[in-house]
């Protein structure tokens, strides 16, 4: 008797993902979609798409969606959640969107303890616009706007969002995960699912930061990009649970 163990999630639409080959966005999309289906909340979920590579994510999540201006996803999510408190509201944002232009919106949503879930994709670069420096780019990392490598003196240090948000009272759950091998992907799924579960329990602001990849703009093959996210990024962005009010 053959039994299906793994197939494409019903939480994703039939649209072909617009991401480059091997980009971890697709993996993380799956995890979000699977979580919404498994928790039985897909039909009351509202996705807030951001600006950047994930600008089209509203086409991929099989639920209602809004497309936010650059950086404003958490403001839209707040607007939706406040008037529809029984719905599940999540944002899906990259590092430029969340950690640069949208950091105020994100911090204040967290500080208010907005009962929303933020999926934060950190790949240390701007993908959509063509490989410019991100607030999370590593020291020494070469990008199209830091062609000799990022320096502390000129560009400042990579911003550590999870470390910073761990200090915010309104945050109920915050974990940094990675997607470079099956074990870490499965763990990322656990974290994402838990974040949604916390939202269902009205615990407050939840965020999962995913250390991700950008094979094209890093100039690497997808497999090497996974390796780089492990070997170069993880030491700067260590994985783990930064806050869990359920455990306190």
């Amino acid at each position: 008797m053959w039994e299906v163990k793994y197939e494409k999630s019903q939480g994703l639409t039939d649209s072909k993902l617009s991401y480059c080959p091997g980009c971890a966005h697709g993996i993380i999309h799956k995890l979000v979609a699977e979580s919404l289906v498994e928790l039985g909340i897909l039909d009351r979920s509202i996705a807030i798409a951001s600006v950047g590579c994930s600008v089209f994510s509203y086409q991929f999540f099989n639920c209602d969606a809004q497309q936010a201006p650059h950086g404003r996803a958490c403001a839209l999510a707040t607007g939706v959640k406040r008037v529809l408190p029984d719905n599940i509201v999540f944002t899906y944002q990259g590092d430029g969107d969340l950690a640069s232009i949208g950091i105020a919106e994100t911090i204040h949503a967290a500080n208010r303890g907005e009962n929303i879930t933020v999926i934060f994709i950190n790949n240390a670069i701007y993908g959509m616009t063509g490989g410019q420096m991100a607030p999370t780019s590593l020291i020494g990392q070469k990008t199209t706007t830091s062609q000799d490598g990022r320096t502390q003196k000129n560009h400042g240090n990579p911003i550590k969002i999870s470390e910073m948000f761990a200090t915010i009272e309104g945050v109920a759950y915050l974990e940094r995960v990675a997607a470079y091998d099956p074990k870490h992907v499965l763990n990322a799924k656990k974290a994402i699912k838990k974040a949604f579960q916390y939202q269902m329990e009205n615990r407050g602001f939840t965020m999962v930061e995913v250390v991700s990849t950008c094979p094209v703009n890093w100039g690497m093959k997808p497999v090497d990009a996974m390796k780089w996210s492990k070997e170069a990024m993880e030491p700067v962005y260590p994985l783990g649970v930064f806050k869990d009010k359920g455990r306190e």
Partner: protein
Amino acid sequence: MAKVLMKGNEAIALAAIKGGVDAFYGYPITPQNEVPEYLSKHLLANGKVFLQAESEVSAINMVYGAAGAGKRVMTSSSSPGIALKQEGISYITAAELPCLIVSVMRGGPGLGSIQPSQGDYYQATRGGGNGDYHLIVFAPESIQETIDTIKESFDIADYYRNPVMVLVDGLIGQMMESVDFDRPKKERFVPEKDWATNGTKNHPGRRNIANSLYLDPAELEQHNIKLHQKYEVIKKNETKFELIDFDNPEYVIVAYGTMARICRSAIEMLKNEGIEVGMIRPITLFPYPEKAFEQIPENVKGILTCELSMGQMLDDVLIANNGKHKVGFFGRAGGMLPDPEEIVGAIKNFNERVVK
């Protein structure tokens, strides 16, 4: 209900409640602060949503979210704050979401002053956001008219799926007048919001998406054409103006909002001196009442545009006049208010004010 004396900003807030507002998102700025202050108490007390955002940018995007969710939602601000909201306004308009934006103008540019002004005429009618879009802009002249307009504004916004802006100056926000909240409001058809992003369980088999991104240029052009057609319908249906003393005017004044009221007094003074002056008072600034200009008698000596700005509405007057009559301009700016006597003087010395 008998008339009550109420401050303009508080009346704006109460009228919004009467108009069925579900949520308010805003950020403090003078001279509109009594709007959020009043709503913070009375919306929350009624189980509705009030939230002071971290910035105007965030506030307008919260409005986007809640409007997309299908609720009646508003924000209010003043000149520099409205400038910050332009990004969100463009997106909301593009995504065809209804909402109410109250703009209480103060002196500008820049930080300017907190005194009354009409310096944001361009901002309201031309917008600072990107792309081809329009708000439906009402410019009431009194607190009573502001109340009546706001009560109806959600119906209008919902009908057209387009933001409505109620544009007043700081004086209307800060003054108190005797007003009646129970004047009957025009009954309008308000379609069901079957487009709201409120979860597919509410509309099985269809995903609702609030979006303004169209990477296919042909598709985006179609979207622009659709919006354009909507604005044409709005022009046809919603253009609103008042003609005052139009029997046999020697001159015609064009003024809106507080300036129109000042001009009303000036017109009375001139009448006492035997000078007949009529007035076109635009009530909607978009759509602009170009049709009203067709009713100006051939033999008038000229049209005087009066603004609390340096010649912004003048552009629309020149377009509407289309070279037919002499057009003059009188403006005060930066928070300065003229008294009626100044308008009287401007009419008497009309020829010195002719711009075209």
